[in-house]
Structures are given as C-alpha cells and as structure tokens.
C-alpha cells in the first residue's frame, strides 16, 4: 500500500511538473513574426537588449515577402498561437482590428505613458490607427518605409555621358525630379553600353502574385493625383480612381516598363529590382527604403557609386507607403510579455539604436535629431518621403481590393491588354462590387 501511495505521489508530481514546466518556460519566451528581409536581422540584434533586460527569450518567425501575407493571415484566421507579436502590413489593420486579431492598445499606452504624438503623424495614421486617422491604436509604429529610387551616381558623373545627355535633352544629367524627366533619363540610358556592358534604364516593380505591381504603379499614380475617393470615407471612386491625371500616371508607368526595363523583368519585385541594380544592369531602380542601408554597403554598387532620390513629381509630390506597426496578437498566451516588449520598444533610446542598426524608426526623438539628416545618404529623402506617403486601402476587404488591382494593372502594363482608362474603369467596377458586398455602398 505504501509502495502504491509513493508511486501515486511520484506520478502526480511528475504530471504537475510536466504541465507547469512548459508554461513557465512559455512565459519567458516571445515569438515575433515579420517578413524575412534586412530590417528583420537588425531587429534580432536589437531584441538582444530586451532579452538582457527582461530575461525573456525572443523567438522569430520570418516569412519571405511573397508568402508573408498568405502565411500570417492564415495563421490569424485559424486562431493560431504562433505569434505573440506581429509586425504586419498597414493594410491588415482594418481586418485585424475588426476581427479581433489585434489587441487595442489605447489603455495600455495611457497606462504606460506612451504618447502617439512622440511618433511621426503620418506613420501613426498609417501603421497604428483603425478607422484610419482616428485615435484608436492597434499597433505601435515600428518600421517607417516608403518606395523610393536609387541610381548609379558613378554613371551619372561620367563626363562623356553627361555631355551626351546634355546634347540629347538640353539639360544637365541629374536625378530626375519629375516623371517626364524620369522617363527621359531612363530612355537615355536604355541600351547604352557602359563599361563594356549593355545597360537598361530602370528596374521597377511588375510582380503579379502578391502586391508588387500595385506598389510600383501607385508611385506614378499618386504622383499624378490619383485618389481613392472623391470624398474621404464615402467610397465614391468614380472620377477619382479613373481621373484624367490618374490615367496619365498609369500610362507613364507602362511607358517606363515598355521602354526601359531589363529583359525578363515581367514579374519583378524587391529581390529582382535589387538584382538588376547590383548586377550593373540598371541605371535606376525603385525599392523600399528598408533595403537602402544594405545597398550603401554593397561592394560593387554601394558607397560612392550609388545615389538616392525620392519619387519624382507628377502633378503633386507623393510616395507609396511601405512599413509596418508592431501589434500584440490577441491570441497570445503571454500578453504581459508582449506588452512589455512594446513598452521597451517605444523608448527613445531603443528607437535610436533601432535606426542605427538599420531599422527605420519613426520616433520624433530620432527624426528630429539634428544629426539625423546626415546619418545616412538617404536619411534626408526618408524624412521627405514620410511626409508625402499615401497608402492602399486598409479596409477589412483589402485583400480582394488588392487582388483586383494586381490583375487590372498587370493586364494593362505587362500583358498589354486594353487601355489605361479601361484598366482604371475596371478597377472602379471591381472595387464597387467589393464595397457593395461589404454593405458600404
């Protein structure tokens, strides 16, 4: 009997330990989900400080960009517990807020004295609020980003090329400031033989499957006055989406694609445009600011050989918004730990280190620092870009809206089907159907 009692006690203790031990280890561990790209490596480095201070181990789940939305949204929809913290795209805010996937952070911010006024206003609107622009915070701005351009400064500086450009266009060869200039410069370089190699005008986004061509073409559309609605919040898209200026913008993007991109760049996004530039094929290229620290360090095309410029002007100054906010996933088993990370991340010193490691902090303590503009060759452009960014729909149905856009734009720009007006008219039709289904129209 005594033996049996001992055995029972032993079994009970083992069972208790086996159930308690994992939860104790879980409490000291957080999983942060994000896309797999350069800034993610910087965040791993930065988070070591958090581990040192809090004793919480950080695990990371980084998903390659083309699968990022699929993988993470599936996880959220399935009620998975993979991520405690998520640096998700700004477009996911609407759906994630309305479906209860993210924790609303207002009370937490108030309690911990975290002020949204400490962050760049455009970033707060884009990465934290839903409904957009209202004081309902679902994320802390984590990574400011916008689509911008870079070019071969060394080629632009060659006297013979400068002379040839001047003779051909009547103006100096400098980074383009308007879309017509961008086209002119790209056409000038396209097919030219430089350093014994045939080069092309510009590498741009044309990717079909996820969001590539939308993020690229909106550079031309926004700069030419494209708007989503005539009256904000009314979903009255006719005349805004397909305005004469927007049509002109889309035509310019197609012209740039047709005239001046390297052969085979029919499905190109971040990686491909970087490849085109790094392999010395393209005189200019577009990409997210996030990649610029890496480009500056590149042995072949970085350093003095590379220059940066913001999206050229059309009828207005505008840049396509990238970047993300960091949210606490409502399903987390470690809510306190996740909130502690947010609190730690919001500190000005941590934000400064974040910027120094290659992350794009949007805390005013970083952006308003007098030395900020000179801290990187693209820092001044970043400040300008963040003040002129425009974002895609952040509606809960953003994925359907994006798919329709990808199709219409790729059909027109790459597959040469129809006109720019037909593409944008089609977009109005597709988006109207979506908003009607959602009961918003």
């Amino acid at each position, binding site marked *: 009997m005594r033996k049996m009692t001992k055995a029972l006690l032993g079994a009970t203790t083992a069972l208790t330990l086996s159930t308690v031990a994992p939860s104790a280890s879980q409490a000291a561990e957080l999983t942060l989900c994000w896309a797999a790209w350069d800034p993610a490596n910087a965040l791993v480095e930065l988070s070591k400080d958090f581990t040192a201070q809090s004793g919480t181990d950080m695990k990371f789940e980084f998903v390659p960009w083309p699968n990022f939305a699929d993988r993470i949204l599936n996880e959220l929809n399935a009620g998975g517990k993979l991520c405690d913290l998520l640096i998700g795209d700004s477009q996911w805010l609407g759906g994630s807020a309305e479906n209860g996937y993210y924790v609303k952070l207002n009370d937490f911010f108030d309690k911990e004295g975290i002020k949204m006024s400490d962050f760049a206003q455009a970033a707060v609107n884009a990465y934290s609020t839903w409904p957009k622009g209202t004081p309902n915070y679902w994320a802390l701005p984590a990574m400011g980003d916008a689509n911008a351009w870079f070019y071969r400064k060394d080629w632009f500086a060659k006297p013979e090329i400068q002379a040839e450009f001047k003779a051909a266009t009547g103006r100096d060869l400098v980074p383009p400031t308007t879309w017509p200039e961008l086209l002119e410069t790209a056409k000038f370089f396209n097919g030219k033989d430089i350093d014994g190699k045939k080069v092309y005008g510009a590498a741009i986004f044309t990717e079909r499957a996820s969001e590539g061509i939308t993020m690229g073409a909106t550079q031309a559309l926004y700069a030419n006055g494209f708007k989503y609605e005539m009256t904000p919040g009314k979903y009255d898209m006719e005349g805004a989406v397909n305005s004469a200026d927007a049509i002109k913008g889309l035509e310019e993007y197609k012209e740039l694609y047709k005239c001046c991109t390297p052969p085979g760049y029919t*499905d190109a996004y971040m990686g491909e445009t970087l490849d085109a530039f790094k392999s010395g094929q393209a005189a200019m290229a577009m990409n997210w600011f996030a990649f610029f620290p890496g480009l500056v360090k590149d042995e072949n095309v970085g350093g003095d050989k590379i220059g940066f410029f913001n999206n050229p002007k059309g009828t207005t100054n505008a840049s396509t918004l990238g970047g993300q906010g960091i949210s606490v996933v409502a399903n987390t088993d470690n809510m306190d730990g996740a909130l502690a990370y947010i609190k730690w991340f919001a500190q000005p010193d941590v934000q400064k280190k974040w910027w120094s490691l290659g992350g794009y902090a949007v805390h005013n303590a970083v952006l308003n620092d007098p030395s900020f503009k000179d801290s990187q060759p693209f820092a001044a452009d970043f400040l300008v870009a963040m003040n002129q960014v425009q974002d895609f729909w952040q509606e809960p149905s953003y994925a359907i809206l994006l798919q329709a856009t990808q199709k219409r734009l790729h059909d027109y720009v*790459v597959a040469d089907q129809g006109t720019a007006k037909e593409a944008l008219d089609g977009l109005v039709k597709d988006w109207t159907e979506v908003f009607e289904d959602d009961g918003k129209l």
Partner: protein
Amino acid sequence: MTDNNTTLLDKAAEKAVRATPVPLVYRVRGLSDRSIAWLFILPTIVLLLAINIFPLIWAVYLSFTNFRANRPNAEIEGVGFSNYQRVLTDPDIWQAMQTTAHFVFWTILLQMLIGFALAYLIDRKFRGHAFWTTVILIPMMLSPAVVGNFWRFLYQPQIGLFNYVYAFFTGVEPSSFQMLGSVTLSPWAIIIVDTWMWTPYVMLICLAGLRSIPDYIYEAAEVDRASAWRQFWSITVPMALPFIMLAVLFRAIENFKMFDMVVLLTGGGPGSTTEVASITLKREAFESWRTGRASAFAIILFVAVFGLANIYVKALNRVKQR
C-alpha cells in the same frame, strides 16, 4: 521444404492463438465473418469520411453561404445559388477555364504523340535501350518545384540556355524574346515544360500496352503478308488503345488541377494569360478569402471533372470490350 514451411506456419499460428488474451477470444468468437470484415475496414472508412467526405459535404454547405474564413465574427448567411450564379457569369473565371482547356488539350496531345513514339522506339529493344529508358524517365522523377525553378532559369532571356539554343539555330538575339513574359509565348512555355516532364510517364504506360500485345499476332500478320504500316494500324494501335486512353485520363485529371508548375513559372501571368482554374480558385479562397464563392467554384470544377471522367471511363470500357 514445403512441409517445413507449413510446420513453421502452423507453429506460428498456434503461438498467436495462445498469445491472444482469453477475453478477446470470447469477444471475437461471437462475431460473424462479415462483422470482422467491417471491423477491419472501419478505421479506413472513418478516416475517409473525416478527410474526404466530410470536407466535401462541408464545402457544398459553404457554397450556399456568404462565409469568409477571414471574418470569423461575421454572421454566416445563406445566399442560395448566388455564389454559383456569380461564378458561372464571371468572365475572369471563364477565361481561366479556357486557359485550362488550352493547356490540357495541347499537353495531352503532345505527350501522347511523343510518349507513344518513344514507347514504340524503346519497344524495338535496340542496343542500350535500358539505359535510354532510364534517361528518358529522369524528368518525371523530379519534383515539380525543382522543375519549375529549373526551367525558369532556362527561360531567362539574358542568361537562359533555352534562348541561347534558339538563338544559335535561328540567329536572333537571345534577349529579343521572352518565353515567360510574353502573352503569346508564355502558355507554350508551360506546355513545353509539362510535356518534357510527363511524356516519360505516358511512354511507360504505352510501353506496357505495347509489351502486352502477343508476338503470335504479329507472326500471323507476317504470314498473311501484312505490311508494317498495316500491322501498326490494325494490330498495334487498336491493342494499345486502352492503355493510351488510360494515359489520357490520368494526364487530363492531373493537368486539370495543375498548380505548382504554373505558379513557379509564371504565377499566372503575364496579366492573367496563364492563370489556370486552380490558381483562380486558390486566389479566391486564400487571398481574397471569399470562401463561399470559392467553395461554389470548387464544386463546379469537381462536378465537371467527375462527370467528364465518368463519361470517359465508360468509353474506355467500351474500347476494352471490343
């Protein structure tokens, strides 16, 4: 030897009987053969119901609702046949079906012609035929993911081998054409890859058909002085036809749901030129998250493939009975 084996078997059976717990013996003793048979197949049936039948019934149910998997809190409402109506009147979906039909038709035609020709050659049993059979079979042993990436590089206009080989024979500039980026060429680029990969499979089935034809039939034809041409059309083709038809059925079903290779090669582009039905379905279900509508589309595809396959199997049986 046989006696020894029997003795060993008997001993093993005896051992098993002794090892069986007595209560179990009593429980099983009362069961009929039919009940025991059911007992054995029950786990399989339960598994089939759980992973095949239930999802199918669930998909049928969802196809009549407005359910979206990314809106867990939204109320699910019945929408009648509205999803079916929207799918069947959506020009994009018809475009995808047309692309699928084009892809299925040409891949099957090419694979049958080349596969049968290769099988016919291999059946001649020339010197080294075993080696060449192995070489021909290599593509079908590769993963579609590997094949897709591999051919993506081959088709690259600036460094791809395909463009260089074509340029070598025709004299055109290698980067002057794009197999994957051209609206006209991209469907053919996929057809070429699929044919390269799956012709060996068709060849194997056709080879089995050719090898099943008894030699005496050809010997009798020789005696009757039938020409080789006549023998081919009157003996080889009719007798190998059930095998060829089987190969057509297998490949048609496979290609109707083709997804991975197209995604890797073109992602459905340029534009929507190579967007086959399975890609449209995936986008509808897991990118747009219109689960109800995607379910309706899946059911329509299922009925179409199932119906066509049934008609085809009936035709196949008729050919076999001839």
